[in-house]
């Protein structure tokens, strides 16, 4: 028995470790984006985000003070003294005076240059630059340092994205546009689908089975087919591109799943309740609003989450039915794609913008995960 028990615990350990590895692997990309959104542009481009969690070596370049204004005579030479860090000290590892050898000297050493010119840099950043009249003129001597900087994070990117940024960098408008698209496009299909689902679940009429089969078929019709005819239709009847068009489109595209989920749920409600209510003289409308709707809350919540995630994260429908040439109704996904094109290298903007758009669905996800799982289980056609 002992050997079997031992084997089992080894296997359990293997399971724990492999699950931990998988979870880490799955989290790693998102964490990368999250961490990057709290770093400045310089930090992002000088090191990988994983390095930002530890103190990092960073190369920086400073310039000694303007010699024409600050030099003092010292015998037949001149001297400029000062501190390269103006109130923002660094931990200097090494330094240099030429871009070809940026770490030639240790703090406290003196760099001897041509014809008696020299620079001494202390660990605290104070320097002494000595040279003759000709050498100490024009612009200040460049000083390259390699410093270790502690992990440092900033909320500056979020301020830029949400409040102070200009033009494309400001997501505030797109954020509200996305909300404007999402909320009606989530609520209206629920109301419409709930009535239809009730009819398909509890009312007798010819053609019911056929309709249910049609709904199942519509579940898988690709959106791509609807784009051209509907855009023509919208332009033809004067809706054009705008919120109304995108609400209608989202309402209709969400309809098959809504009807399917809600009908499957309502069919499972106990028949007695409904028949008792009918005997007591309740109309179908009353049964629906007073009994069915409250009882169907879990299914309604499931669909609401689906539709919310889908409309919030959507790019294609918004691009086709909403965003016109002026771009004033742009949504966040679209703005991020545009940022990817124009500011592909500015990760501080991109990461923050992406995280702002991801944050809301993630919050909804973690708050209402139970309903999402329930909806998924009911919604995948068996």
């Amino acid at each position: 028995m002992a050997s079997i028990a031992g084997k089992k615990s080894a296997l359990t350990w293997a399971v724990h470790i492999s699950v931990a590895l998988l979870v880490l692997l799955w989290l790693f990309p998102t964490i990368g984006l999250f961490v990057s959104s709290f770093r400045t542009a310089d930090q992002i481009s000088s090191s990988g985000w994983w390095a930002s969690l530890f103190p990092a070596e960073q190369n920086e370049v400073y310039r000694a003070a303007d010699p024409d204004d600050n030099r003092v005579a010292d015998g037949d030479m001149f001297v400029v003294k000062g501190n390269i860090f103006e109130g923002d000290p660094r931990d200097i590892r090494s330094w240099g005076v030429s871009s070809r050898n940026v770490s030639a000297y240790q703090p406290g050493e003196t760099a001897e240059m041509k014809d008696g010119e020299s620079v001494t840099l202390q660990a605290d950043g104070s320097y002494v630059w000595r040279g003759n009249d000709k050498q100490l003129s024009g612009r200040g001597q460049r000083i390259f340092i390699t410093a270790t900087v502690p992990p440092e994070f900033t909320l500056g990117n979020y301020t830029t994205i949400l409040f102070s940024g200009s033009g494309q960098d400001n997501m505030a408008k797109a954020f509200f546009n996305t909300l404007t698209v999402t909320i009606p496009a989530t609520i209206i299909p629920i109301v419409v689908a709930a009535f239809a689902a009730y009819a398909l679940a509890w009312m007798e009429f010819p053609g019911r089975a056929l309709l249910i089969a049609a709904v199942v078929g519509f579940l898988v019709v690709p959106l791509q087919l609807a784009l051209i005819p509907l855009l023509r239709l919208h332009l033809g009847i004067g809706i054009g591109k705008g919120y109304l068009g995108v609400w209608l489109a989202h309402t209709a595209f969400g309809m098959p799943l809504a009807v399917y989920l809600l009908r499957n749920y309502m069919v499972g409600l106990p028949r007695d309740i409904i028949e008792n209510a009918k005997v007591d003289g309740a109309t179908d409308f009353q049964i629906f609003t007073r009994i069915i709707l409250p009882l169907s809350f879990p299914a309604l919540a499931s669909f609401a989450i689906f539709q919310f995630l889908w409309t919030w994260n959507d790019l294609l429908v918004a691009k086709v039915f909403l965003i016109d040439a002026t771009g004033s109704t742009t949504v966040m996904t679209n703005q991020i794609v545009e940022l990817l094109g124009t500011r592909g290298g500015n990760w501080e903007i991109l990461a923050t913008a992406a995280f702002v758009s991801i944050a809301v669905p993630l919050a909804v996800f973690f708050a209402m995960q139970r309903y999402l799982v329930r909806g998924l289980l009911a919604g995948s056609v068996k």
Partner: protein
Amino acid sequence: MFSNNSALYGLTVIVIGVGGCLGYFFLSNLFLDKVLFPASGPNAGRNINRANMIRPWLFLFPALFALVVYLAYPVFETLRLSFTDRDQGGAFVGLANYRQMMDEPKFWEAVQNNMLWLIVVPAISTAFGLLVAQLTDRIRWGNLAKSLIFMPMAISFVGASVIFKLIYDTRPEEQNQIGILNAIWLKLDGGIGSILMLQVLPSILLIGFVVIVASVAWSFVRGIIAKGEDKSVWLLPLRLLVAGGALWLIWVSISSLLGLWIGGLPYGEAQTWLTIPLWNNFFLMVVLIWIQTGFAMVILSAALRGIPEETVEAAIIDGANPFQIFFKIKVPQIMGTIVVVWTTITLTVLKVFDIVFAMTNGQWETQVLANYMYDKLFRANDWGIGSASAIVIMLLVTPILVWNVYNARKEMK
């Protein structure tokens, strides 16, 4: 007047929309019961029956209207548009659009890539989902692990594209690499570890893949030659199709296998991952796999929970090891669910647009059908070819559609 305050506009619409819906349902029912067929007077009984015949359609009308106008009509209209030419004022041009599309190398590139996506993404997502579902089934923090792996489901394809672009980022040679993939790549030096990881391991995987594809294809093709098999006419094209697809897949695998060993790997150079043909498709697929694994896991996890304990216990008593229990007892019992997960992910793959659009926009041979269609529609402004490519997507979806409807009807009976 609302244009400068879209939030207020939205709020108004919610009130009007929801109020309008409820008002419609309430008033139309009222109208039916009180005015059209009042449940009183001489014909009360007949009126109640008539009202009850009409009422379902009142309840159904808005939903049906949406389904017909926004989903049914477009299918036929797209089909019609695919036979017309916009430049000739919408004149009927027969199959000219399809012919022109077939002549475009970009279309065939999209079809090929879509085939790769269709095989790789559902397979790997389902496999990973099953693996995680099984591993987390019995451990105490399993639910936490599952919800973390499930999390990418909430992230938009666009957001995920940004996340993975950061991973694939490339910096010039002299700078620090900030993309993790290049950072790891530069740590590899062509030593024995690298060869094992990047040449031997992928080769084994590829050879395994070729063997699986070949055996699946053989089981289909054998029917043509073997005696006693179903030789009905409609099976023949299916068999030839599978055989052709399998030959193509085997060819792709073997040529990339040879490339792996002959070309040698460019160690020590930062790579622009998204511009390497063929491989960049896989880098894009990773994004979708990352998102869809959580979905597969949730469904399969519920299915695993639903397996009767007795079957597993009986297997343990018979001395089966954990792997045998998993592959011989559990997997066969949830095969139906695996098929459902597979087809659902297949549908997602067929419609994948955002990821390709945001990451490469179909450049460097990464085009897929959905993005090709968008390209034709809104960049080339060619409704004819755009519709034709949409119809191709619809044709690919149709088998799943038929299968789903068939199953749903069977279940209802």
